[in-house]
């Protein structure tokens, strides 16, 4: 009985563990103000609502120069939707990597919150579930290392300064 319970539990854990993509209720990432007064969770619905763009680009942290088709809402759309209009943000990754990103990257450079690469939803293992991607194949200036460092994968949090 105990062993059955244990095995059931193991199954449950296994099920739980295999279900690595975020649950419907699980947010992709959160946007909050630095003082914590406002926090908005970016859920699947929010992403759906913001609409998505698709473009082909090379990706940092990958091998080779091959193009990948990335899809996801414009960061700017998400910010507008969530009601943030800061001049600068701090992007925080799951591994606690942090970097300052000026708002104009979102407003003018077309950075997206990629949730799909080559038609597959991103997982944590392949830099998901959300990856800030710049359309650097369209704009040579975006291959500068500074934009590579701002191409935050495993985005956890965007803090409006």
């Amino acid at each position, binding site marked *: 009985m105990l062993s059955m319970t244990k095995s059931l539990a193991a199954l449950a854990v*296994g099920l739980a*563990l295999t279900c*690595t993509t975020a649950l419907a209720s699980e947010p992709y990432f959160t946007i909050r103000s630095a003082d914590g007064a406002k926090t908005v969770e970016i859920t699947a619905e929010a992403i759906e609502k913001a609409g998505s763009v698709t473009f082909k680009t090379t990706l940092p942290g990958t091998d080779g120069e091959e193009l990948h088709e990335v899809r996801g809402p414009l960061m700017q759309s998400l910010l507008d939707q969530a009601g943030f209009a800061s001049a600068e943000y701090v992007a925080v990754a799951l*591994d606690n990597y942090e970097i300052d990103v000026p708002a104009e990257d979102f407003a003018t450079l077309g950075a997206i919150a990629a949730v799909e690469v080559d038609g597959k939803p991103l997982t944590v293992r392949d830099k998901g579930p959300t990856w800030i991607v710049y359309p650097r194949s369209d704009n040579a200036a975006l291959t500068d290392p500074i934009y590579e460092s701002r191409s935050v994968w495993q985005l956890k949090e965007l803090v409006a300064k």
Partner: protein
Amino acid sequence: MNLLGKVLGRLPLLRFPIILSLFLIMLPVSYLSLAQISDGINDRLHFSARLEEASRLELEANTLFSKAELFARGDPRVAAKDVQLALDLLWSRVNVMGTKSYRKVQADDDLDEALIGELLGAMPRLEAAVNTLQPGVAGSYRGVDLFATQYRERVIAFSDAANKARRQRLNMAVQTQLQSVTNLKRIQIAYVALGVIAVVYVLVELFLTRRLNRRLNESIEEKHELLCTDHLTGIGNRASFEDMLRTLKAISGADFAVIYFDLDGFKQVNDTLGHGMGDMLLKHVAAILLAVRQSDHAFAFRFGGDEFAVVLTGNRETARHYAARAVQKIAAPATLDANVVQVSASAGYSHVEDLRSVEPVDALMRNADLALYAAKSAGRNCVQSFNAGLLIEYERRTYLEDALSHAIVEGAVEASFQPVFDLQSRRLCAVKVVPRWSHNAYGAIAPAEVMEVADSINQGAALLLSLLRSTFNLLGRLTTQAELRIYAEASENLFSQPGFAQSLFELLERHRVGPGHLQIELTGKRSATYGEAFLASIRSLRDAGVIFATSDVSRAIDSRNRLANLDFGTLKLERTLVEEATRSERSRGIIQGLSAMAVKMGAEVIAEGVDRREDVERLQRLGIALGQGDALAPAMTPDDLLRYLAGWAGPSVVAFRR
């Protein structure tokens, strides 16, 4: 030394190229330096980010191992998904570490490259181990623990190496940064220096250009002054005079006058005492003109020769006073280089008020000239003001001069005849021909004036020949002309003109005018010397039988006549003398004397202006041979003359008009 001199000599030309090449050199140098600095910054970002990530491998591995262990021990703080997330993060990290650019960084900094490859291969095993974890079952940790044991040391070493490499890179970055700052400072200093050089260059160029301009202006001024100065006397010349008039003209309401001076007798000084003395005299006159200058502004100029001008401000009276003083001073004998020289001057002036409203200031020059001319006509050594009469006369004269040439050619100047009688025999013996010209605007012009105007425009010969041609043509129609002589007047200078004597000679030939039938009275100014051309003309005409006459006693008795074989066959008594004879015993005496002189010279005497009957008788009594005037016969047109002559039965019939 020589080469240096050459280079220095060319320095002005090399300035700009040198500055330009400095800039041209500086641009690529600074561009390359800046590119290097920027590359350094990019490199740092590249390495720093990758090494930092590499160093996190240890943390993420340990997080997974400890969370797995806690989970296995049943720690309530750790859920299955936390373990799974830690696994995902580690896996993601290993994946990233496995990419080319990361492997290159690892290789560059001597990290354990093989580790990442092994880990990539081992990840599925780790995942399987994680999946066997059971909460509260410590033994379920074994799989993960085995993995941890296998790789922990190497992962720690890998992360430490990455950290160390990162620190080294940071240190190097600081060094590079310092170097970059130094380089930037150098570039900055170079640019500042270049900027200073450029500014200095521009200033030097400006300075040089200004200096050059100033010199240029100075030399232009100098030249101008030189051009505007009369070299001999140091006073202004004609150009500066005109400049002065333009200046005054520009000042509306300026009150000023122009005075022209002309020396009388300068030529004689020049001719007799030499040019040196002439020059001294001119300087002397210039000095007087400057000295007369009083409180008013007066500027003296020399136009060349012995012509001077003064422009002075002030009213008409000031001008008159100045001119009178100057004329007076010039007339005083001057001791020049031990010679006492005495000349006089004529002056004419015109004040700006004389200008009619439409006239330009330049008209003052003409006015002053007219006044000067009037002063000379009035006997020199005097001052004459401009007046409207002078201008009217001048305009009339100019008009006549313009019209006369055409009038002669077109035959508008006709011959007019005055019969001449032998007062003793009372025979008609000659006709005097004079020009008759009626002008539309000015009416009948006096014959004397027509001849004078013709002379002044060099048409005297044409006029005379034209008159004689008409006369000969007219008389050619008569059968009884043998005894009739033709009298005409000609200015003495005509005989010096080339071709005149020849033309006259040919005319006489063509009309078969025999010797003694043409008498020409010499009029006008007597020349100082008889030129070769004059003597030749006189000789050839005298040989052709032309008789010469004069009313000028001094001309008649001129000793040079002997040399020229110039005999005067007739002495003319002027109209004024004839008129005076009526009431003046003295005049009658003069007539008698002249008559006696003429007899001694073998010349006839003819009286002009015999207009009253008593004149005829008086002249007869005085023994005068010939007469001409209204009391004898009036002036006639060609037609009148023909009719008049037709009334004579023959040349021997003599009758007086009653």
